């Protein structure tokens, strides 16, 4: 099992405030500050998406950095690679904007910069200890954990819930 940290989504905690989207765009801006990023041209864009489901569920969606990543196999220009920290990253310098990665991504999380003809996606914020979206999430709907750590926490929560239920 991978010892690298990943971004996990707890949809039940998402309030749909889109703070993650703003934090992501700011982190991927030149100036890295909200008030100046807003004036940059081109405007930085977010790589996190928050979808909505009937019943008012909010679903943050972002690159899963798949173990068997279809985009990594599909790229026709050698722009997509796996980083030292196991993230699947797109090298904008090599990307030619053919959108093959967009065509094969089953999560729909690869964005397109139409002007520059470059694909972009979550890069897990390589310059930060914790990705910007995770750091910004006010409800901890986004967590940065190893797969192991995440399932342990989940197990704990579940067993706590069970205990409470049994105790009651």
């Amino acid at each position, binding site marked *: 099992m991978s010892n690298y940290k990943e971004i996990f989504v707890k949809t039940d905690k998402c309030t749909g405030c889109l703070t993650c989207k703003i934090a992501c765009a700011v982190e991927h801006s030149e100036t890295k500050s909200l008030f100046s990023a807003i004036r940059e041209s081109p405007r930085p864009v977010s790589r996190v*998406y928050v979808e909505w489901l009937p019943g008012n569920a909010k679903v943050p969606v972002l690159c899963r950095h798949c173990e068997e990543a279809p985009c990594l196999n*599909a790229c026709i220009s050698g722009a997509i*690679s796996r980083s030292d920290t196991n993230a699947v990253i797109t090298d904008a310098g090599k990307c*030619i904007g*053919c959108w093959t*990665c*967009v065509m094969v991504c*089953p999560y729909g999380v690869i964005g397109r910069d139409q002007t520059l003809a470059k694909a972009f996606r979550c890069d897990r914020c390589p310059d930060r200890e914790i990705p910007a979206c995770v750091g910004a999430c006010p409800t901890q709907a986004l967590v940065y954990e190893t797969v192991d750590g995440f399932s342990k926490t989940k197990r704990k929560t579940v067993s706590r819930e069970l205990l409470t239920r049994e105790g009651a």
Partner: protein
Amino acid sequence: METRYLIVGGSAAGMAAAHTIRKKDKTGAITVLSDEDTLPYFRPMVPYILTGKKQVPDIALSGTGIFVQPRIDVRTGTIVTSVDPVAKILTTASGKTWSYDKVLFATGSRPYLPETVKGLDSPGVFSLKTVADAAAMAQRSRNTDHVVLLGGGILNLKAAFALLEKKIKVTLVVHSPEVLSQLMDPEDAFLIRKALDRAGLKIMTGCSADHVVTDADGVCAVALDNGTQIPCRMVCVGKGVIPNTECVRGSAITVDKGILADPFTACSVKDTFAAGDVAVTHDPATGEKTVTALWTNAVDMGICAGLNMAGIPTRYTGTLGIMNATQVAKEPFVAMGRVHTKGRDLETHIDKTDTTYRKIVFNKEGTRLVGALFIGDITHAGMYRYVIREKKPIDRIKSHLIRHTLHYGHFM
């Protein structure tokens, strides 16, 4: 005993297989025999060699993406002429023989040159497939201000744009009523056609080349079947490809258009595999046998073949006969699965605006998504591909598919 893997063909399928094998088998000997003189490269990047925007080393496979495994012995300029799959021996053009434990045929395809058009063997007639083609075209293009391209498929469109970038006038001669006829119905293509016209491509549809007119310097014109002649010093043929099956012909390996591969990428003889453009596989959208010529499919199938060769039985999920994403003249588009609906009994939904065109195709019962075509806005295309390929039940998501509001949340 270490396994000796032999891979014939050093492009997408072959190299994907080689790197996949190395991931699973750290000790076996992996040898790739490539008929090209260049080390493996990203073939779809060839137009960039023609424009001069990239040099051959810039587009090398090695060290990028999935092509990062060590100890893969690539022999360039090695043309395999025959195989004895029972004795497990290959013979090359130089007369050298190679014995192996397992072999993969990933010999790819080559441009189809219609015999009906005379003179396609003249100097100045090209197909843009290899870096060698690109170099030769670049050379010839210096003395040319007009190129006639035969065929209106993606490869020719890419070649046309590469030439336009070099300030060379281009005329496309397209037999079909519209460009990209392999990927969409003529009426689907109007946005792309508009963009192509805007970009300065001259496109003549509904006519074909009759023959190539030559003089001492090779090509000097193309004569059309409507009686007209277009003067030009260069011709580029893009009328599809045919699988390179020559080296297995006469052997015990079954060939039918391409090399037949079973769902586990295996050929009719033991320890023999096929992948990529040369392999005949099946289309999950139509269920029919199919041969495709797409980098992405070739890589996928190569990976699958690599796993099977390394002893990990892996079923190949098949390739959509039609599957392509690209951007021409700043117009992005994706075509997947069954997109030709004209005269067919299919449930089709078309939604168009000034800048976007979307066609969503279900089977005639409307119970399964079988095709999708997006032009202008290709957002979430991958999710449609997933639904088509995995034959996902659509009862809960059908309206989202039609209205283009599908997102990952709907799969949760």
